[in-house]
């Protein structure tokens, strides 16, 4: 399948000499939700801005739907919608007017039905004639999303769309993103809320210091880089791990009533059976146990820290 966005050896060095992107190569598949993760200043927004035409690249190529984003800017920009990180809005305009403007600006003929559909999907219809200056921060965020959807884009960039918004709006946005995916729209999502990427993304890319560290299917990434742990709640607290359990690298909880065992689900032997047998031999009894898998956030933190 031809990727909807293809980035090759993309570099960006700003006038001050800061190298924001270092030969980044990345493919985004059609119809997927791609989570682009990275700490502040990693290069996420620079990359998005180059693809959208807001920032000029230093070298490399970017194609969208097979068109170069400079020589074929009409084709590439026309099919992209962008929700920026900040909240820049036309203060004295109304949501309906700014959506109508955005649609026209992106070269689409007027379509009041589509504008109404977008505004309704974001719970903005009853605010359509209210001046944006009088809307709350969350509502302004919705207006930005509505603007980006006004010209029916094939690709939607959401640059930290839920930063500083309440739970209700976040869930609304997640629903909108899911419905966009169902209608075939490719969504590239950058977020600081890793659970958002965990919830929504099909694939995840991690960028740090201007370099892409990893690109992988989210579930595969969590399987491969994630670790599982088994926590045993002991019937009687212990002061130290007995010598017979040395080989299992157990962690003893602060009050001595919990033992934690880390294991790899991919390996041939998890070691759980042997551990339980060893516990029995040493006379340690437990009255409960639980397993858990490391979150995408823990994987992300691990990847970024490894780079440092």
């Amino acid at each position: 399948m031809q990727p909807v966005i293809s980035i090759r050896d993309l570099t960006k060095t700003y006038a001050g000499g800061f190298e924001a992107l270092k030969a980044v190569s990345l493919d985004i598949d059609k119809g997927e939700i791609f989570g682009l993760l990275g700490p502040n200043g990693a290069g996420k927004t620079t990359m998005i801005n180059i693809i959208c035409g807001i920032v000029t690249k230093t070298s490399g190529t970017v194609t969208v739907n097979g068109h170069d984003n400079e020589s074929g800017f009409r084709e590439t920009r026309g099919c992209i919608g962008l929700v920026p990180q900040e909240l820049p809005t036309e203060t004295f305009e109304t949501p309906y007017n700014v959506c109508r403007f955005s649609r026209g600006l992106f070269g689409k003929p007027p379509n009041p039905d589509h504008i109404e559909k977008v505004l309704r999907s974001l719970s903005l219809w009853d605010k359509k004639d209210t001046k944006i200056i009088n809307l709350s921060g969350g509502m302004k965020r919705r207006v930005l999303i509505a603007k980006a959807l006004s010209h029916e884009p094939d690709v939607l960039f959401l640059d930290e769309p839920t930063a500083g918004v309440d739970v209700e709006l976040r869930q609304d946005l997640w629903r909108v993103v899911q419905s966009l995916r169902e209608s075939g729209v490719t969504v590239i999502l950058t977020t600081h809320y890793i659970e958002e990427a965990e919830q929504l993304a099909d694939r995840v890319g991690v960028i740090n210091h201007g370099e892409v560290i990893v690109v992988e299917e989210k579930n595969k990434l969590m399987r491969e880089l994630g670790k599982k742990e088994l926590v045993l709640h002991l019937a009687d607290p212990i002061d130290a791990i007995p010598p017979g359990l040395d080989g299992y690298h157990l962690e003893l909880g602060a009050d001595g009533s919990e033992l934690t065992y880390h294991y790899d689900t991919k390996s041939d032997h998890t070691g759980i059976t042997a551990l339980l047998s060893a516990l029995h031999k040493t006379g340690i009894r437990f009255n409960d146990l639980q397993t858990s898998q490391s979150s995408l956030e823990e994987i992300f933190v691990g990847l970024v820290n490894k780079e440092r």
Partner: protein
Amino acid sequence: MNWYSVQAIYRTEMSRMMRTVVQSIVAPVLSTSLYFVIFGAAIGSRITEIDGVSYGAFIVPGLIMLSIMTESISNSSFAIYFPKFSGTIFELLSAPVSWAEIVLGYVGAAATKSVIIGGIILGTASFFVEINVAHPAIMLLFLVLISVSFSLFGFILGVWADGWEKLTIVPILVIMPLTFLGGTFYSISMLPEFWQKLSLFNPIVYLISGFRWAFYENADVAIGLSLGMVIGFLAICLGVVWWIFKTGYRLRA
């Protein structure tokens, strides 16, 4: 040509004028009326005629020029500076529009406003003095060309400015003095020879002279030279705007 984009920008800019109708239209009409009261009545009682034209009627083309030049600069510079200031410029830069379409939208709207204001001032002036336009087509040509050129100039100013102060520095410190010294209220032939020659270095002289010729067939410089100066200024501004978008100067990082 992406006409939907041009139309979107143009319509939004025109609706901004309607939102700020007092600032956009009433203010220039009021200031023109005041000029008539102060210059037409006070000075006109002492200078009855210039080149066979009553003083009140003589200053009309200059007043129209003064207004359309300042309004063109003000409207187009604000139109592009405000999105830069508020951050909404991202949408314009990420839209599938060429530099020519952006300019057509913004400059077209600013120039339209100026032409409307020019017409309103002409109408207002006709309440004070009798005005005859000897060459209406050439008058309209000058009005449109000067509105477009100064709107382009304002657009450049708006891109260049990185603060509100810079937006007003050029109109107040450069354009306004050059316009007042460019024959708005007098013919440069009334000046001593040295000042006459010095005035010829003021480009505004050529614009006002040409525009006034279209009214009364009186000019300080040849009409062809005036037209050439307007077209030359337009070409320079277009060249600078093209360069801005080619290099991304103060627009794209």
